């Protein structure tokens, strides 16, 4: 009886120490799940999901506080990828946050721009080039199309234009499957 108690206590102690050591030694910095979710988000940093950027949204999803259907720029593809990662069923995009739109890019009407720098401060990816009282311009390759620069512009000189389709980046359309009818 006593030997059993001693043996079990000793075992418990050893394993407890081992686990404790492992917890300290192999501590994971940051949230690996949030990291994985963030990798699937389109990084538009538009805030349409209600969070200030993609990373905060990813963290909220990792904590289970946000649903997977709040990213309009990612659209269906992102929802499917998130559902896959989190082991959930794909659900349609939340209509409250907006709808999936074709990829856009901002363009500044350079004749109207007064050089106020407000858009530069709003751009989440530093894609606007300019200085005070100097004309601003958008670095198209860096623009994520988040539309955050539209609102602060006092002279409304920023427009969103659709990225023209190029032969090299053209995608085959999804084949229209027939309506499935089964013979009665």
């Amino acid at each position, binding site marked *: 009886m006593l030997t059993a108690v001693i043996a079990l206590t000793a075992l418990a102690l050893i394993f407890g120490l081992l686990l404790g050591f492992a917890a300290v030694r192999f501590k994971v910095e940051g949230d690996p799940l949030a990291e994985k979710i*963030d990798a699937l*988000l*389109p*990084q*538009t*940093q538009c805030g349409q999901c209600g969070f200030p*950027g*993609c990373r905060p949204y990813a963290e909220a999803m990792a904590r289970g506080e946000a649903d997977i259907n709040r990213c309009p720029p990612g659209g*269906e*593809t992102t929802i*499917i990828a998130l559902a896959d990662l989190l082991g959930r069923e794909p659900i349609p995009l939340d209509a409250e946050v907006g709808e999936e739109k074709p990829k856009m890019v901002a363009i500044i009407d350079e004749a109207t721009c007064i050089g106020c720098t407000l858009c530069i401060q709003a751009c*989440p*990816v*530093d*894609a606007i080039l300019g200085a005070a009282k100097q004309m601003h311009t958008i670095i198209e390759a*860096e623009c*994520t199309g988040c539309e955050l620069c539209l609102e602060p512009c006092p002279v409304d000189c920023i427009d969103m234009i659709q990225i023209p*389709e*190029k*032969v*090299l*980046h*053209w*995608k*085959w*359309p*999804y*084949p229209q*499957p*027939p309506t*499935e009818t*089964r013979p009665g």
Partner: protein
Amino acid sequence: MSRQLWSFHGGIHPPQYKELSNQRPIAQSSLAAELVIPLHQHIGQSPEPIVQVGDYVLKGQELAHAQGYVSAPVHASSSGTVVAIEERAIPHPSGLNALCVVLATDGEDRWLEQQLDERHYTAIEPSHLRNLIRSAGIVGLGGAGFPTFIKLNPTGRVIDTLILNGVECEPYITCDDLLMRERSTEILAGIKIMRHALQAGEVLIAIEDNKPEAIAIMQQAIANEPGIEVVSVPTRYPQGGEKQLIKVLTGKECPSSGLPFQIGVVLNNVATAYAIHRAVNHGQPLVSRIVTITGDGIKEPRNLEVPIGTPIQHLIDQCGGTSGEIERIIIGGPMMGFAMHSSAIPLIKTSNCILATRQPEQPAAPEMPCIRCGACAEVCPVELLPQQLYWHARAKEFDKTQEYDLFDCIECGCCSYVCPSNIPLVHYYRFAKTEIWSQEREKEKADQARKRHEFRLSRIEREQAEKEARLALKRAAVQEKSETPDKGEAEKQALIQAALARAQAKKESQQEPPKNTAELTPAQQRIIDEADARRQRLDAAADTPRKEAE
């Protein structure tokens, strides 16, 4: 003929319809008034235009220069004036426009003065040969359009076998057949240049047994050539596929997503060999090709030798025009081609066939659900599982399609051909492929945006911290001063006194008389006095009239 042949998996035997267009000899196409020459006619980077609107160009003159390694230049197909460099419709399944050089021909068809390398090709080192072939704009003429000079670079490997593809397995197409029948010696000359560039061992010319004339003529041409052999292969689609033909002739299998030269084999089309002969032995870049204009909707189907950039409608008109109600015009063969969106589009280096099909008497059977019969897997020449690929592509599960080796699919169309439910399987695979590429591009862009966003956040944080630190420093200084007011006062007064003294000293030093009025000689003094007197006189004279005027 005793050569051992292997076999590839699957394949089909669709009706050939080759006799439609192989009865007439190759004819020279008439020159169109306007040639539309797209810049992008190959796999790789688009070349950059080097001519301007209004320039007069000669046939064979370079219009656009290759950019980067995997690229090819484009040349003027006839002499004339560049009237526009703009976006025009090009032969592409998307029906989108792309940059083209538009040439108004002058009808003279004058060649640019050729700068021919006088040496025999065997005296030219292989790397220089490749450069010649590159600057001639030669790309694979079988349909894929991969720049040929890259394929002729063994990159230090030993090439055992050079295969010339004269298989032409797709129904309707006969341009290689006619080329071999009519220009066998020229093809042979091109083959020898290729062989020299690659330092290849044996050369095999593969021709399907449904082209007995071409086989006989090619055999005659190579009668006295050691190491070159014509191999007749049994007709089966898609035998002309690169990896399929290599398997049939050598028994070797190309690794998944690998290239033939890794297993010591290089494969080129016979038309490419002909183009190489023109480029190296005659100094003529690739400005024309032979194309089959055929189908039940064409009155006189035949093969034409056509300047690149000729509008397709111009070619159809030369074959008697269309007959009956045309269902669609296909560029390429019936298995792998795509329907043309507008008849204004031009012929490019890779277009081997124009196929006009009449409206069928019975409408095509509608698409039905998959019954999992497995016929597609039986015919797949790459031994994929087309059904699995279909389900996953349809469900947009792209990572799963890649697990089933979607990118090894050669889009030959055998699976769609045999599908009893008429499912456009290849369309699903093409959709999935382009979607995966697009997602990869977007992923790259997202990673870049994340990096830039994180950098911005860290920059804002750093700036905030720096501002904080500056303020703290200032605050500390103010506080220090306010704590010790008396001690600083005397010091300040001393500093003010010192500054005042310095200013005073400076002022005094400036009050010294100008140096050039001291120690004057009597003569100088006299001149100064005279000048002063003159000035006084003039001033007095000037004052008088001014007073009168007032």
